[in-house]
């Protein structure tokens, strides 16, 4: 488990390049900094200064090596590397509120931006006019879009929103692609069609059920047949295409989870305000989601008897003689984890994933060593 503290400020968002040697991140201001890996050190190689507001989303297209950033200034820029420098191209999103998240599609011919204007902008490059054009998905979104994720077929897009619902839309752009084949989520996919909505008639009536919370993060599985999302009422849910009337939810005992990703077809890792990643296991046959374990190796505090000097220091500081270890955070991250990304192995056989958080640090987690370190941890 490698942990590197980049800054003292929160890392708003991050994105890795194709071979994981460079990371682009936003240090809670208007810029994007690109760091390059130098052995075990990280050196800053570029500063991308163009936004007038906080950069809220970054995505790095692995094959075409383009970076798209979106910010609170209602703009998005596509950056291309020309002669060693990153040059921005403005994309007119036609939104009147801040942009919140951005994602390249799997084929990298379009990207989606979620914003506070209650709509999703799907942007694609128009060859004839040589610039980026966007189309809007508006209905039936009622509030800010907090997170987006593309389906592997390059057409379906999952969106988590502050109106407590997770939806799957079709973002089919006929100018850049062929008609998609049928999927478990549906076969007719005109642009803007809503293929799935959570929490509607699909959810089973529970005594404590109801609206739920803001959907912080959504993630498709590698095959695209499963969709997972985390919500502000401390729940994690998984829906399966084709069986969308039954959504499996788990009310967790932790604080709300802010980000989630699949690491195999049946296992999810999520992290949030509790500062450590957590594993969940989905059983398709039973349609159940269970808690798999806490994925953090706490530092074994050597309790070797406190010296007299330490006793007085503790008395002075805490008015108690003992070390209050339950108040100290013994997790790797010292503040909420806001984003999680798969580094190696893809979403079906992930071997490494990375988390960044509000403590300005980035941690890289190795799945194999986690499995061996924690007993009873089985990643299926």
């Amino acid at each position, binding site marked *: 488990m490698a942990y590197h503290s980049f800054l003292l400020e929160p890392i708003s968002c991050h994105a890795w390049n194709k071979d994981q040697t460079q990371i682009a991140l936003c240090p809670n201001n208007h810029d994007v900094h690109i760091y390059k890996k130098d052995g075990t050190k990280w050196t800053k190689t570029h500063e991308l200064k163009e936004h007038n507001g906080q950069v809220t989303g970054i995505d790095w297209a692995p094959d075409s090596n383009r970076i798209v950033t979106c910010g609170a200034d209602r703009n998005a820029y596509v950056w291309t590397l020309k002669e060693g420098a990153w040059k921005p191209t403005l994309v007119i999103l036609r939104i009147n509120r801040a942009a919140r998240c951005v994602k390249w599609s799997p084929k990298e011919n379009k990207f989606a931006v979620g914003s506070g204007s209650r709509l999703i902008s799907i942007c694609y490059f128009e060859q004839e006019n040589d610039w980026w054009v966007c189309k809007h998905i508006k209905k039936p979104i009622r509030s800010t879009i907090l997170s987006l994720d593309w389906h592997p077929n390059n057409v379906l897009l999952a969106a988590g929103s502050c109106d407590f619902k997770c939806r799957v839309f079709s973002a089919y752009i006929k100018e850049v692609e062929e008609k998609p084949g049928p999927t478990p989520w549906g076969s007719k996919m005109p642009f803007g069609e809503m293929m799935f909505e959570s929490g509607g008639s699909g959810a089973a009536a529970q005594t404590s059920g109801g*609206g*739920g*919370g803001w959907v912080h993060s959504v993630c498709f599985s590698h095959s695209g047949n499963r969709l997972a999302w985390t919500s*502000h*009422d401390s729940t994690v849910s998984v829906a399966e295409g084709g069986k969308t009337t039954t959504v499996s939810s788990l009310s*967790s*005992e*932790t*604080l*709300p989870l802010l980000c989630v990703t699949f690491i195999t077809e049946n296992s999810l890792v999520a992290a949030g305000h509790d500062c450590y990643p957590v594993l969940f296991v989905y059983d398709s046959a039973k349609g159940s989601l269970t808690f798999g374990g806490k994925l953090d190796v706490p530092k074994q505090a050597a309790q070797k008897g406190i010296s007299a000097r330490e006793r007085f220091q503790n008395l002075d500081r805490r008015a108690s003689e003992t070390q209050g270890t339950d108040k100290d955070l013994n997790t790797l991250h010292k503040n909420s984890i806001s984003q999680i990304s798969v580094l190696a192995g893809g979403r079906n056989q992930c071997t490494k994933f990375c988390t960044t958080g509000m403590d300005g640090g980035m941690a890289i987690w190795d799945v194999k060593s986690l499995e061996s370190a924690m007993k009873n941890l089985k990643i299926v």
Partner: protein
Amino acid sequence: MSKATLSARFRRVDVDEYDENKFVDEEEGGENQLGPDETEVDSLIRQGNLMEALHAVLKNPPINTKNQNIKDRAEGLVLKVLSAFKSSDIEKGVQSLDKNGVDLLMKYIYKGFERPSENSSAVLLQWHEKALAAGGVGSIVRVLTARKTV
């Protein structure tokens, strides 16, 4: 001395009602939710069967109803059952509930905190401690984020 002679009634119009982007909660029909059965719960308390009373009072929570009276009655009934428990039995009572039950109990506990009566806070705090051990912080988060309150 000039006084406007035209009507000033427009000043009484609530313009937010006409905002087409206004978020309206989807209200599902909750008129037939009457809350827990008072007679059943009372008889169980008198019999001394407190576990059953706890389960009975947590049935039919008046979540969707707009009738404030039903909600108040339900809260009063829950408080009666919770106060009837002996301190040593509280933990067993909480253990006998499932996840949704613990969440619902937390909702009632916080509702009870809102309007404290003579001894209610002490009893509720004891229950809160045990419910927290069972449901974790997540159950409290669900009380705070729930759009349909009990």
